[in-house]
């Protein structure tokens, strides 16, 4: 475990020494504050559209940070040849995969916490209302989802040649899944066989990200999600994460690395 966390530590250092996070945070902050500065009909307490916008920006920024950070881990190690001094140590390829996974996941979690702190300060200053437990639940579920996304991106980085292609393909895939997968069962009903079966299969196979998206509940002040449901969602994410990591390890261990 020491090795895994040592590798994870390097990934976290890389995140806060690169500019990506700061640029995205600055953009999110700027857009949110600009939106909050507008007054509609001289009503000073309107806040839900600001919450909605800020949460959407956080969601997108978290995806970009996670995918961009993860997609370049193993390919850049190979391209910059830092993988050789690493694997020349008593480190297994499985430990490298796990280390990169934990590093990217923890890094994205840290970024998420900072984004949400900003969100809580901005919205709380206008609402004078802090449902902290609901916010914690939202952060937790989103972080769990980012774990799934990290594992998926790691797998993509093993399959595709360049980090840029991994980023593009994973972003397109994740947007499509986010938008379509909750509704594929409904779409399937309106299609003839065999398309109906294919769509149903896709519905059950593709990961469902709506289990981790509490934005509508936060904006609409719907209160806490039952913790049992959160637990089930976490198990669901853990299953997919484990599957993606296993596939990543199987792919990575087969790759010949020549100096």
């Amino acid at each position: 475990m020491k090795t895994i966390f040592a590798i994870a530590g390097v990934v976290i250092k890389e995140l806060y020494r690169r500019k990506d996070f700061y640029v995205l945070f600055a953009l999110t902050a700027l857009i949110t504050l600009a939106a909050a500065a507008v007054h509609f009909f001289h009503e000073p307490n309107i806040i839900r559209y600001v919450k909605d916008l800020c949460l959407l920006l956080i969601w997108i920024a978290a995806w970009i940070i996670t995918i961009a950070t993860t997609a370049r881990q193993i390919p850049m190690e190979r391209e910059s040849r830092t993988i050789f001094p690493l694997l020349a140590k008593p480190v297994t390829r499985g430990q490298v995969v796990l280390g990169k996974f934990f590093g990217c996941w923890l890094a994205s979690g840290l970024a998420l916490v900072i984004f949400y702190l900003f969100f809580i300060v901005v919205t709380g200053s206008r609402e004078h209302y802090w449902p902290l437990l609901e916010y914690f639940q939202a952060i937790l579920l989103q972080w769990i989802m980012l774990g799934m996304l990290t594992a998926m991106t790691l797998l993509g980085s093993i399959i595709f040649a360049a980090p840029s292609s991994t980023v593009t393909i994973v972003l397109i895939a994740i947007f499509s899944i986010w938008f379509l997968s909750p509704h594929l069962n409904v779409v399937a009903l309106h299609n003839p066989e065999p398309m109906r079966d294919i769509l149903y299969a896709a519905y059950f196979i593709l990961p469902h990200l709506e289990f981790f998206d509490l934005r509508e509940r936060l904006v609409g002040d719907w209160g806490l999600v039952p913790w049992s449901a959160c637990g089930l969602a976490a198990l669901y994410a853990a299953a997919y994460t484990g599957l993606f990591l296993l596939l990543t390890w199987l792919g990575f261990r087969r790759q010949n690395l020549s100096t």
Partner: protein
Amino acid sequence: MIDSSEFFLYENPDESTVSPTAMTAILQTQKLRVEFRTRELRQPVKIALQGLDLQVNAGEVFGFLGPNGAGKTTTMNVLLGFVPPTSGSASLFGIDVRQPIARQRIGYLPELTYYYKFLTAEELLRFYAKIFSLSRAETDKRIPELLKLVELEHAAKRPIKSYSKGMQQRVGLAQALINNPDLLILDEPTSGLDPLGRMKVREIIQRLKNEGKTVFFSSHELGEVETVCDRVAIIHQGELKTVGRVGTIMGNYPTLEKAFLNIVGYQPQTAP
């Protein structure tokens, strides 16, 4: 199907992997064969190593020579676990190279030295020390010693991306020595270095030899090999051509270079 030993690191390797005959040999290959298959159709399989038998004993400085494309780097890649052998075996300290624990007591300096550019030299060494499970106290003691040895104390807190090539090479040497290895594998250690840098590397190799360490390195600088090595092996087109003491291989040739050229079958072109 899935070999869990590739995933988890064994603290105590299985005794069955330790060959009784290899007790004195630090590094050993037996009939090592490596083939590379390309994805293109009707392309012949490339044979990088053909049944290589090599043995490096404890405490010696061993030079591994050969022209470009001879199979030196492939041999090192197999020893370090980057490339699996097609057939034959390779072991370090009697442990099969496919087991990660085989690398616990080695240090490796690649030919092209690239390290995490966003880390400082100190952070890099600390990272590798954690991988070797060195204690905090041991790490805090080793790092200043190594930085002094490679003359990087003044740049220890600067990110590696600000280093010159020579400085990066010295960082590489420092990370190869972080765990006080019993076997050092160096791939072209003086490549790209100025004469002062090359002298420094030679001094370090000599010092390690005096401490009883084993050094296995490849180089094109035959003058240095002649000076530093106890034994050399010459490999050409994947085959081991000769192995032995420098003096024995030189024979009647005045320099190791002339002996080398003769062994690899170099025919000088006669003027028309």
